[in-house]
């Protein structure tokens, strides 16, 4: 079975578990990297509807919206699983389901470890070729990837 290793991240924040969960979900608009909006207009909001099956979507300044995915599991304040349905061409694809699992682990009364796993990335596999051809789109994956490649290479030179 072909798999690519999931992307796994963890970060410890100075906040209790409940606040960490709320900021991650209800306040996503305040921290979601705006440069990665798939909307044509600037990102205004990033919404996670607080229930299993709820939509995960972005709203632009001009009122346009685009779905990112949906809520697979909603278990505040400790666990959240989201479906990420953005393909490498940076478009919403209802047929693509990759999973982002986020666990909020209370380490103390005011410290929370956030563990994130983005998995089933191999499902994006057959979109990859088109992605590489998307460099001429200003919001295209290719351009973003290219800028990251430059950043990575600059880092490795220092």
């Amino acid at each position, binding site marked *: 079975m072909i798999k690519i*290793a999931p*992307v796994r991240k963890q970060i410890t924040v100075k906040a209790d578990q409940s*606040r960490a969960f709320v900021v991650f979900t209800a306040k996503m608009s305040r921290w979601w990297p705006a440069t990665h909006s798939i909307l044509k207009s600037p990102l205004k909001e990033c919404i996670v509807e607080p229930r299993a099956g709820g939509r995960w979507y972005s709203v632009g300044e001009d009122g346009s919206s685009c779905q990112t995915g949906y809520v697979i599991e909603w278990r505040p304040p400790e666990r959240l699983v989201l479906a990420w349905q953005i393909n*490498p061409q940076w478009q919403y694809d209802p047929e693509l389901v990759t999973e982002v699992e986020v666990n909020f682990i209370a380490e103390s009364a005011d410290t929370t470890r956030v563990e994130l796993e*983005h998995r089933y990335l191999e499902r994006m596999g057959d979109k990859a070729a088109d992605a*590489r051809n998307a460099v001429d789109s200003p919001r295209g994956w290719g351009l973003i990837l290219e800028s990251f490649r430059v950043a990575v290479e600059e880092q490795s030179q220092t």
Partner: protein
Amino acid sequence: MALADPTRRRVFEELRRGPRSVGKIAARMPVSRPAVSQHLAVLKKAGLVGDRALGTRRVYYIDPKGLAAIRIWLDQFWDEALSAFQSEVEEGGVVE
């Protein structure tokens, strides 16, 4: 999906051992050479596999820019997102 088919996955996995010709892949599998060629064509179209001429033969290899590129990008994306999340949690305003 390019990798949904079990035979196609086998073909892809054969390439993990290194670049291979159609004949060499087919010799290790209970399918015909034309079938292997067809699977390789799908994998190539999906950006998972590349090919090049080697003498009179054509060899296929796993394209490192396909799946790997996606993973590299997401890895960096989540670093950036979680770092922004951390700033918001620790410095942001009151959560109602």
